[in-house]
């Protein structure tokens, strides 16, 4: 039983991590607090639904098609909407305020478009809802897939960021954009790429999540906030931190559900989050800001 609970906690945590990874890139590297993050996830979920029920295409193909579109879209959003704010911002604080306001507006626009297209009703479909037996415990294939992808993306990006030239540039921007510029790194392009990559990741998460969660056009904010909690807990800009934080939250949620009281699951996750911050104000793997 313990193993089964652990397994379901890990899959849930994997989903949280997957949902948060794009945001940690967007916030950690591009330094944009993107409040419209979750809307993109829901948009991708709608796209997957449309693929599946409208065109009868396997949502896994959606996983190949949707993220590149989201990448392009996010890139455009960064260049058109965000860059002017970055250029005009005198301080990091000013940029933070501006990006909160602008992406808050964007949140409403994307949500409004989805409401106009699909209305506020709930949507869901069944895909890969088949049980897999792992050492006697049962787990749903679609949820396991989300976990595996989270791990794959986390490790892949980690390697990409540490082992490639572009990755090194992106990391340099994350650490210190001014210094990065001095060593001839194109900060703007690196930021735009990181932002767009974050968009592609959240779209992938949206496609996967749509296979097992019921969603509607208003649900984006829920994911944005969950992602923010994971990102902050893991340490801004740190993919492994997001993975660890996601897993901790998932495990805590399911352990508390079984061993304490399911009514306290969310209270426990927030309590853990607050505790972690009190002990490590910069997050689990975050760098100290001062």
């Amino acid at each position: 039983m313990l193993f089964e609970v652990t397994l379901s906690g890990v899959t849930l945590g994997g989903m949280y991590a997957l949902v948060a990874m794009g945001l940690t890139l967007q916030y950690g590297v591009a330094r944009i607090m993107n409040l419209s993050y979750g809307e993109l996830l829901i948009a991708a979920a709608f796209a997957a639904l449309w693929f599946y029920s409208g065109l009868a295409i396997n949502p896994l193909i959606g996983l190949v098609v949707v993220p590149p579109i989201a990448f392009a879209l996010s890139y455009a959003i960064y260049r058109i909407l965000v860059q002017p704010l970055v250029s005009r911002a005198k301080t990091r604080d000013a940029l933070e305020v501006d990006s909160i306001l602008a992406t808050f507006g964007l949140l409403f626009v994307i949500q409004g478009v989805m409401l106009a297209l699909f209305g506020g009703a709930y949507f869901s479909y069944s895909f890969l809802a088949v049980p897999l037996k792992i050492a006697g415990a049962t787990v749903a294939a679609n949820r396991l897939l989300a976990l595996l992808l989270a791990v794959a993306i986390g490790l892949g990006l980690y390697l990409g960021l540490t082992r490639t030239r572009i990755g090194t540039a992106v990391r340099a921007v994350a650490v210190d954009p001014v210094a990065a510029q001095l060593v001839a790194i194109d900060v703007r392009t690196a930021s735009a790429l990181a932002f767009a990559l974050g968009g592609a990741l959240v779209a992938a998460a949206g496609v996967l999540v749509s296979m097992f969660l019921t969603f509607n056009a208003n649900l984006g904010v829920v994911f944005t906030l969950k992602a923010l909690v994971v990102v902050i807990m893991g340490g801004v800009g740190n993919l492994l931190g997001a993975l660890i934080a996601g897993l901790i939250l998932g495990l805590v949620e399911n352990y508390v559900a079984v061993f304490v009281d399911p009514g306290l699951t969310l209270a426990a996750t927030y309590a853990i989050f607050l505790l972690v911050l009190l002990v490590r104000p910069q997050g689990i793997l975050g760098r100290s800001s001062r």
Partner: protein
Amino acid sequence: MIGLGLRLLTATAVAALAFALPASAQDKVKIGYAISKTGPNAGGASITQIPNYEMWVKDVMAKGGLKVGDKRLPIEVIEYDDRSNSEEALRAVERLVTEDKVDLLFPPWGTGLNLAVGPAFNKYGYPQLAFSAVTDRAPDLAKRWPNSFWLLGTSKQYVDALTGLLKKMRDEGKIGPNIAMISISDGFGIDLSQAARKGFTDAGFKLAYDKSYPIGTQDLSPLIGEAQRSGADTFVAFSYPPDTMALTEQSKVASYAPKVMFLGVGVGFPMYAQRFGANVEGIMSLGGWSKDNANTAAYAKKHEEMFKRGPDRWGSQIGYASLQMLEQAIERVGKIDRAAIIKELQTGTFDTVLGKVKLVDNMMQDNFWLIGQWQDGFFAGVAPQRAGVGTPVVPKPAWKN
């Protein structure tokens, strides 16, 4: 600045008024509603409530308008979005009444918002035909606000009906004495589970598992596991649509097959049968549909044509019936005299998709199914005992892949 704001406001209000005031006496009927088009309530509102409003208006207009006295008057609709917020809902209702001067109001979605606007409906004397609120305070509320009608009933009604069914099954030896129950931590789930706790134990059942879970829980497998381990062969969940979907899917994945599986809101949604196909067989929930009722069948067909999806098999038909009652009450009164309309609603008998309806103390009496079960692809009413009642199928058929 505030002064300027108020001036601005008065100016827009005056403009709105000038635009909206009827030229002569009554040449149209203005109906206003504020409903959750955004926010957490939007999911429920746009499945169960808004389609009924739109459909009824279309139907009435197709007949040439709303019959008031000897004329048929066109309907003008004014709709606002309350953003799932009590304060906004209240203000929108005040605006509809005092600025837009609507003749009639439709209620918002859900228990919380119906209560928030209750005092305003009462103060201005508008009938409030709430059909998306389940509250045990309904009889008190109807007394406090005689203009308010609580058509969806009380938690106790549902629980009594369910307990009656379970008791019969147990006495026939089809199920054991243990029940596993979970409920969502929201007014709906807690009211119902509270009533059920008492109802079940009074009927001699034992609650082998009894927990609540917060709104927004995304993995219900731990609860399913615990229910499974509790050994109970009856599973009752007072859940909301996203959880109802997840409970069904995760139960299937876990091969959790209780003999009775009762789930909450969402089982009657068209997408439920669409998503789970043959696996819906035997699942029970609130609401239900009559197999032999040509009226509701026609209603469902019309709904499908207009919105590309069928109605919710719980509240939807009651909502449409409430609008038909309002329509007939106006016709009988012969003018937009709201006090007389309320009186007529309280005492009259109405011909609706549900059949003949006569309210008692502003509530329906056995006019609709409290408990239903998916049988051969149809969500059939199995309680209370009334004409056309189906026989519940126990045990629930095994999951198919």
